[in-house]
C-alpha cells in the first residue's frame, strides 16, 4: 500500500506542470476517482486544510491524504513521492541543462501546456462541485469566493475562516429554531 501511494504521488509529482493548483485535478483523479481511497468531501477538506496551512498546497494536500489513507508512513511516502520528481528534475536541469534555458522550442512546449492546465483545474471544480450537491447557497458561496479572490485579492485564509465560522453560526441558529 505504501509503495502504491508513493508510486501514485511520484506520478502526480512528475507529470504536473504549472505549480500546485495544477496538481489538484490529478490528485483528485488518482485518489478519489480511480483508487477510491477518499470521498470527494474528504478531499475538499484536505484541500481546505492544505490551503489554510503554511507551505505549498500540493505538498500539504499529499501529506494530509497520506495520513488519511495509511497513517504516518502513508504521509511520509506521499510527501516523498510528491517532492522527489521535482527534486530530481531540478537537479538535472541545474547540473546539465541550465545553458538551454532560452531555447524557443522548450518555451513553446510549456506555452502549449498552459491551456490544458486551465481545463484540468476547471474540470476538477466541476467534478468536486457535482459531488457536493446543487444547493443554491453552495453555488453562491463558491461564486462569491471566486469574485473576491479575482477582484479584491483577499487572502484565501480569511475566506476559509469566514466560511467555517459563518457555517457554524448558521447551523447553530437552525438547530435552535427546530
Amino acid at each position, binding site marked *: 500500500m505504501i509503495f502504491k501511494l508513493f508510486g501514485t504521488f511520484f506520478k502526480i509529482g512528475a*507529470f*504536473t506542470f504549472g505549480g*500546485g*493548483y*495544477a*496538481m489538484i*485535478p*490529478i490528485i483528485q483523479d488518482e485518489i478519489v*476517482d480511480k483508487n477510491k481511497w477518499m470521498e470527494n468531501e474528504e478531499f475538499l477538506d484536505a*484541500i*481546505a*486544510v492544505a*490551503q489554510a496551512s*503554511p*507551505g*505549498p498546497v*500540493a*505538498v*500539504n494536500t499529499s*501529506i*494530509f491524504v497520506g*495520513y*488519511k489513507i495509511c497513517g*504516518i508512513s502513508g*504521509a511520509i511516502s506521499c510527501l516523498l513521492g510528491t*517532492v522527489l*520528481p*521535482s*527534486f530530481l*528534475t*531540478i*537537479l538535472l*536541469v541545474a*547540473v546539465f541543462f*541550465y545553458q538551454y*534555458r532560452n531555447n524557443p522550442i522548450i518555451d513553446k512546449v*510549456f506555452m502549449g*501546456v*498552459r*491551456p490544458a*492546465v*486551465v*481545463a*484540468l*483545474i*476547471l*474540470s476538477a*471544480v*466541476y*467534478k468536486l462541485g457535482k459531488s457536493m450537491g446543487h444547493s443554491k447557497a453552495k453555488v453562491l*458561496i463558491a461564486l462569491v*469566493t*471566486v469574485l473576491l479572490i*479575482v477582484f479584491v485579492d483577499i487572502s484565501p485564509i480569511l475566506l*476559509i475562516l469566514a*466560511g*467555517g465560522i*459563518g*457555517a457554524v453560526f448558521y*447551523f447553530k441558529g437552525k438547530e435552535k429554531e427546530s
Partner: protein
Amino acid sequence: MKILQLFISFFKIGAFSFGGGYAMLPFIKKEIIEVHHWLTTSEFIDILAVSEMTPGPIAINSATFLGYKVAGVIGSIAATVAVVLPSFIVISLIYHFYTKFRNSPYVDWAFKGIRPVVLGLIASASISVAKDAFIDLKSVIIAAVLFYVVSFKKLNPIILMS
C-alpha cells in the same frame, strides 16, 4: 555554515508563507537576495522561469535550484528538506486534531461552510492561469475541448498534459 543558514532560511520560508507556491516567492526573494545576497535578482528570475517550466510545486523547484546554486547538491537537499518540513509538522498536528474532533457538530458545520469556499478557490486558480494561458483563440478552444473530454469522458488527465 552556509548549509545551516540555507536550512534555516528555507525552514522560515516554508513556515511563514501561506497560500501556496506563488505566495512564497516574495519570502524567498527577501531571504535569498536581500538578507543573504546569495544571488542577483536576474539569476533569481532565471531560476523562477525554470521552476515554472519543470513539473512539481514551484516552491519546491525553486528551493532545490537555489540550494544547488548556493551550496551544490548538499545545499539542494538541505533547502528542499527545510522547505517541506514545516508543512509536514503543521499538517501532522492538524490531521490529529481533525480526526479527534471530526465528530463534533461544530467541526462538521465549519467544513460544510468551507467546502464551497475551497471550490471557489480552486476555480479562481484556473482564472489566474488562464490570464497567462489564453493568448489566442486557439488556446481557448483547446482548453474548452479538454474540459469537455476530462469532465464527461473520464480521460486520464496525465495523458493530456503530455
